[in-house]
């Protein structure tokens, strides 16, 4: 199966590595506005239309604010689309893309990759779906580096809430169901945020997202249910730590240290490819991603307007 990767930043690079492990997938081209020549033997195209002609399957790894435009082009051509999270940075773009998807013959999957992290799967599988949960989810790293630093601009990326904390918001929606009430606070730059979510089933989820953490990348979950407590902290369970005399420099964008044969990015893309090949349902649909992206966008609105937001009222408005 031929595929093209649209956008080659931090996540495009991870996806290329995943595809290269698949015998049945050929990356036919990479679309990039900044790079030329070839990357690991894959030709780079600076013309989007030209690149789109190369394959029936596309993987959109461009900056969030460009998702809508490129998604529209790909959907219009009936391509199967893998769309990196967040699906879009505005409610309007999300709705527009959902409409496009309805009319497109291609399949669409969104890369809410946390659902492929086995530790989060363990949490999901072991909680009692019949009981409300009280949770603390935290995700922290140093300030990420991106081309022209687009991810630091709240208007282009949605800041730490949409770009980073969406992982945990999506997990909360996946594990505890629809959200009814949101309250969020953030710093002026949208590099740090605190969120409280109330779910339809009574669960309460509190989230902390930080791009101001110099203590190494951390993802953390603590879930309490009646007589049960689940805890997970990525820094407490590092299976291998290398300690060198001269400390190595940190990566520009930090990701969790994953010591697994099949990493979560490989797993999500493998399922996407298999769903196309066998014409099976997509594991994380655009609608699934919209549910949590919408919560993140409303959290931004709550932080902007300094008030709690009721989703019931929002729907009726």
């Amino acid at each position: 199966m031929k595929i093209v990767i649209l956008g080659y930043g931090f996540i495009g690079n991870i996806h290329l590595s995943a595809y290269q492990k698949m015998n049945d997938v050929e990356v036919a081209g990479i679309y990039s506005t900044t790079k030329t020549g070839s990357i690991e033997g894959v030709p780079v195209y600076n013309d989007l239309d030209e690149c789109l002609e190369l394959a029936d399957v596309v993987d959109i790894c461009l900056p969030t604010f460009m998702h809508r435009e490129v998604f529209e082009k790909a959907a219009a051509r009936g391509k199967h689309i893998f769309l990196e999270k967040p699906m879009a940075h505005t409610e309007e773009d999300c709705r527009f893309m959902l409409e496009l998807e309805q009319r497109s013959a291609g399949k669409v999957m969104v890369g809410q990759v946390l659902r492929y992290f086995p530790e989060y799967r363990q949490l999901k599988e072991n909680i009692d779906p019949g009981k409300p949960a009280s949770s603390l989810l935290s995700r922290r790293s140093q300030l990420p580096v991106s081309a022209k630093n687009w991810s630091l601009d709240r208007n282009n990326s949605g800041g730490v809430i949409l770009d980073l904390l969406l992982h945990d918001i999506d997990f909360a929606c996946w594990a505890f169901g629809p959200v009814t009430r949101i309250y969020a606070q953030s710093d002026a730059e949208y590099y740090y945020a605190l969120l409280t979510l109330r779910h339809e089933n009574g669960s309460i989820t509190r989230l902390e997202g930080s791009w101001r953490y110099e203590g190494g990348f951390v993802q953390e979950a603590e879930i309490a249910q009646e007589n049960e407590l689940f805890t997970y902290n990525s820094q407490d369970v590092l299976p291998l730590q290398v300690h060198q005399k001269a400390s190595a420099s940190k990566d520009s964008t930090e990701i969790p240290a994953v010591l697994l044969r099949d990493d979560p990015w490989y797993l999500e893309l493998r399922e996407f490819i298999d769903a196309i090949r066998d014409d099976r349902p997509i594991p994380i649909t655009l609608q699934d991603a919209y549910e949590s992206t919408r919560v993140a966008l409303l959290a931004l609105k709550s932080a902007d307007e300094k008030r709690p937001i009721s989703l019931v009222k929002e729907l009726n408005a």
Partner: protein
Amino acid sequence: MKISILSTAHVHFEAFASAVKQCAGTELAGIYDDDAHRGKKKAADLQTVFYENLHDALSVCEAVVVCSENAKHEELVLAAIEANKHVLCEKPLAISTVSGERMAKKAVEQDVVLATAFPLRFNTPAMELKRVIEQKQIGEVLAFHGKNPGQCPKGWFIDKKRSGGGALMDHIVHLADLMRWLTGAEVSKIYAEADSFLVPCITIDDVGHVQLEFNNGIIADIDPSWSRPEGYPTWGGIDLRATGTQGAVDLRAYAQKVTQYNNTKTLQHDYGDFEYLYMMNAFVETIGNHQTELATAWDGVAATKIVEAAYQSAKEHEVVTIT
């Protein structure tokens, strides 16, 4: 200085008694308890005198520690102040702002010390955190992320008449006071979600998620939930992360533990400094007119205001502003 302990109802009684006995400047004068059976037993354990009558216990001391059910603080504190005794009162000082204010004003009138027991101010790692913040090692503080989860203490704690409230009443005040102490700022806005679904067979709040905004713009959150099941190896803990413009600092105030496993259970042994002892020292120094870090009655009132607003917010689903 002779100190009587008024009531043994609170789970922190042993810590107070031990501090009074260990502190060089204090001596345990006796114990009063309105539950004579309980009081006699505790007095015997500590080899001290049990007083069935409150005024007898007050007549043998210069200062008292009030360690009763939350709802009985006011009655005991006012009686002690009337008798011209200095008071160190278990947290929360009061179950309502008006009650706390009555106590604080009475202490001013009688010119005695009324202090609130916020032992975190004497927790050695927390004191180091204060130094880190004051030296601007993380730049300007932007946010706090706080957790004070615990096991459900059961007994009178889950009876609203005697406790004034559940997990929110029990556990918000420690971190709220710590944040005020670290920054000198006051909480201006509160948003809270609360419920009761963690501990079986109780109806009082056992889940809380509180967000705060301070009057200098710092944002914060606190988890006061009774989310630690009975099999958890310790009572709970207090963690606080301060995030600033130049970095972040993680406090685990009770991380200093040695863990012991055997065939049936896991035990943890604290090896950190015994903060109640340092709090007791500060109480004696405060009575002697020295400047200390001891929380005042007004600090206790400020913390209670936050708790009251949290309950109101959880009920109304709106942000509550306090002044």
